[in-house]
């Protein structure tokens, strides 16, 4: 897979390049500031872009802005945004410009190499990867919502679903059969009044749309 990396910290940059190449990916370009991102993307047309949120020149949210801009200029470009901290509103902004091929993870998650590479693959394939912390925040803050009617198991399923996992993965994580997972998902959709849809990021979208609009 051809990856473009935008990260200003030399240590992290080297680490990520090492990690990606050792996993068999090709890092086509590495940039270190917000304004460099778009030209590099247009030039190299990578399969996926991995962006740090805080970068020069302003050290604010250059990476996030670059991601939003890139997705407008290059529709369907998968982007995985990494950050030192997660902010629910940033997740909403990222998903606002189309949810296919979007990832938003804490930098901490890079350490779990397999899970990180898995998330990268998922995003590159048009799926979603949301940090568990964002999902937890989304799920815990609402009061008096239909979420209360979910059983603990159904909440777990919803959480994993929102993070972007498919049925097989959810079944493996919760150590249940896939049929049980489908049943739980059916119940969740029913209780939340969501139209039952097939798989992948559309489910995440449905869940997030629901959570945001309660």
């Amino acid at each position, binding site marked *: 897979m051809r990856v473009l990396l935008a990260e200003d910290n030399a240590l992290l940059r080297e680490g990520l390049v090492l990690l990606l190449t050792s996993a068999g990916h090709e890092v086509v370009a590495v940039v270190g500031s917000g304004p460099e991102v778009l030209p590099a993307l247009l030039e190299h047309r990578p399969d996926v872009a991995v962006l740090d949120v805080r970068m020069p020149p302003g*050290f604010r*949210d250059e990476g996030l802005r670059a991601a939003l801009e890139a997705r407008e200029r290059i529709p369907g470009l998968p982007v995985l945004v990494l950050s*030192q901290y997660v902010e629910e509103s940033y997740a909403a902004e990222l998903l606002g410009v189309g949810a296919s091929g979007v990832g938003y993870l804490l930098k901490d998650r890079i*350490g779990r190499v397999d899970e990180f590479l898995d998330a990268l693959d998922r995003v590159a394939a048009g799926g979603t990867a949301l940090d568990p912390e964002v999902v937890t925040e989304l799920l815990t803050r609402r*009061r008096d919502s239909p979420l209360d009617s979910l059983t603990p198991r159904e909440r777990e399923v919803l959480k994993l679903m929102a993070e972007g996992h498919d049925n097989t993965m959810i079944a493996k994580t919760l150590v249940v059969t896939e049929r049980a997972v489908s049943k739980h998902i059916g119940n969740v959709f029913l209780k939340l009044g969501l139209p039952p849809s097939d798989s992948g990021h559309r489910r995440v979208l449905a869940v997030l749309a629901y959570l945001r609009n309660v």
Partner: protein
Amino acid sequence: MRATVRQAARATVQLVVSAAMTFGSYIFITVLLITAIATATVVGAFMLPETVLLIRRIAGAKRQQAGAWTGRKIPEAYQPLTGTVRERVRTAVRDPGTLTDFRWMVAYYAYGTLPVLMLPLWPLGLVVDGVWCGLLRRRAVVLPLISRLADLDAHWSTVLLKPSPKARLAVRVEELTQTRAGAIAAHGAELRRIERDLHDGTQARLVSLSMRIGLAKRAYDQDPAAARRMLDDAQTLAEEALTDLRHVVRAIHPPILTDRGLVGAVRALAASSALSVTVTVDGLTDGHDGPRAPAAVEAAAYFVIAESLTNAAKYSGTDRADVHLARARTGLRVRVRDEGRGGAGGPSQAIGSGGEAGGSGLLGMRRRVAALDGGVTVTSPVGGPTVIEVELPCVW
């Protein structure tokens, strides 16, 4: 005619009180004399501060009386008399307010006699105005003069009792000294808290992590399975250290403030609150463009709003709140309002009503704001609404 008489009567009451005060201050001259003699003989120096306090009280009463008549409050500016006798005497003598009061008192001996003039005005006014105004329906002439007398009394008092710029400055310096000391103390406490968090949490975890890696290296050849377990532990520790660090950073200065500015950060806060929150903004701009308050002020405002919204979500029993941010000439104004059950932070609060925890939150808020020379006003009558207003002075 009736209105004229009523107004004259009101003025009379004012003047009678004024006369009583004049009389009081005549008696007070004896006290002054005794104090002067006692101070001169050093023995009774301790009487001086007490006398000054007494003058302050009399001047304060006159300020109130005159202020009530004109409808404009007369400000006062005194330095607090605290410390040892020597310090109290020194402050009492050096306070410019003492001189102002003394000058007023001397002048008052003279103009305090004004009320006497109303004695002939009453019978004269009743006769003249009785004919002129009551019968001929012209404008009253004599009785309104009594009001003018009260006006004159209040005006002179206002001029004489108004603290001199020097006195105001002295009081302001005193205030600033105190708030600066508070700010430094708050800053010190904050540094110690951060140090403790880093030391107990992050640092300890990193040490432990390094240890696990060391052990894993040793076990690498003999017992690969054990080495792997150690490395798993090490990774968990590294992740916990990162989480710790994130919390510490958030408490120092929320990163979203840097990213999005105050307005953006507050909108994000509103969006993630359990309540449905409306944010209105006056004179501030979204994003990085436009003027921004100093970082400490933004952080304080952010914490006040976060704290208020958390309290409202927990205790108010409502599901709506309003946040208003305004740029004022003198600084930043923040108002958080909820239509809940109220009763937050007050001393009359029932124990266990939840307001107690809200009260300690309020205390933290007050401290944080006071450290920046700002003020917090909480109005929360039982039955609501609860309004928390914060003013943070700054230049921007």
